[in-house]
């Protein structure tokens, strides 16, 4: 009886399998249309860098990140949890967990002037917290926010040292 319901059309109702197939094909058609029409969606499908760029947050490469550390004009925020930060961080990074962004803002509001240069990172390209923190800081009024999308994983893979307590 379940087989009939799933695979056989009746006089009044189409089969579950038939409807599922149609809905699936229709969803792929909509997917193709959305990709064609929306640059944001295209960027998202291609990579996370696209997601960040499409939101207007500039991305920095690993080489640029190394130069940023030597540049005293930048503040570097680590968007991960405090325990991850303590275990190891990019040199000169300050802990600003996205999960407690409002508390972090209270702590750092004094130095976050509109023209202050800020760079944010988290664990890897898969982690979204750094992008969300960057957008949050930009909403707060920090005009110059950049994102190191590769994060800790990219830093470690390049053989660079982490700082810890």
């Amino acid at each position, binding site marked *: 009886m379940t087989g009939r319901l799933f695979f056989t059309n*009746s006089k*009044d*109702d*189409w*089969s*579950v399998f*038939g*409807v*599922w197939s*149609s*809905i*699936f094909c*229709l*969803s*792929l058609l*909509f*997917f193709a249309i*959305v*990709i064609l029409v*929306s640059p*944001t*969606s295209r960027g*998202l*499908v*291609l*990579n*996370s860098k*696209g*997601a960040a760029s*499409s*939101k207007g947050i500039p991305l920095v490469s690993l080489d640029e990140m190394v130069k940023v550390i030597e540049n005293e004009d930048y503040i570097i925020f680590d968007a991960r949890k405090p325990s991850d930060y303590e275990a190891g961080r990019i040199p000169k990074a300050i802990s600003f967990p996205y*999960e407690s962004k409002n508390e972090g803002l209270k702590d750092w509001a004094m130095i976050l002037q509109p023209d202050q240069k800020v760079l944010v990172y988290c664990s890897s*390209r*898969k*982690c*979204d917290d750094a*992008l*969300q923190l960057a957008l949050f800081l930009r909403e707060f009024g920090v005009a110059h926010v950049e994102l190191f999308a590769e994060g800790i994983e990219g830093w470690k893979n390049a053989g660079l040292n982490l700082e810890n307590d």
Partner: protein
Amino acid sequence: MLLAALFGFASLHKIVDPVPFAGLIAKNDYVPFPLIGPLSIWLPCFEIALALGLLLPKAQKAALILAAFLLAFFAAIIALNLLRGLEVPCGCFSNQDQPATWWSVARNLLLILLAAMAVFLKKKKSLFKN
């Protein structure tokens, strides 16, 4: 009709701005990284197609069953996150930051019940017609 409207409404914000929804999928940590972007766009497309299926009389029964499965899947994901102690927003109807709660699970179960009742009523109606 209610379920069709719900699925249609739920998919709108995800199609207009898929980036936050992609972030939510990434936070859940169940999907491999390369699939996060495509999934964040395909899922709302599937919801819209399902909403259309719910509006077609001959496809309604099957679409209700599919909707119930989808709702059960979402409820399971939310419940699993809550049991793991993750505070991940549901992303069901908006991109707001409020974490999902057991109420989100209960709401999905209620909608599944609604879908089951609709299937039952449709079955009774077609038996009555015959």
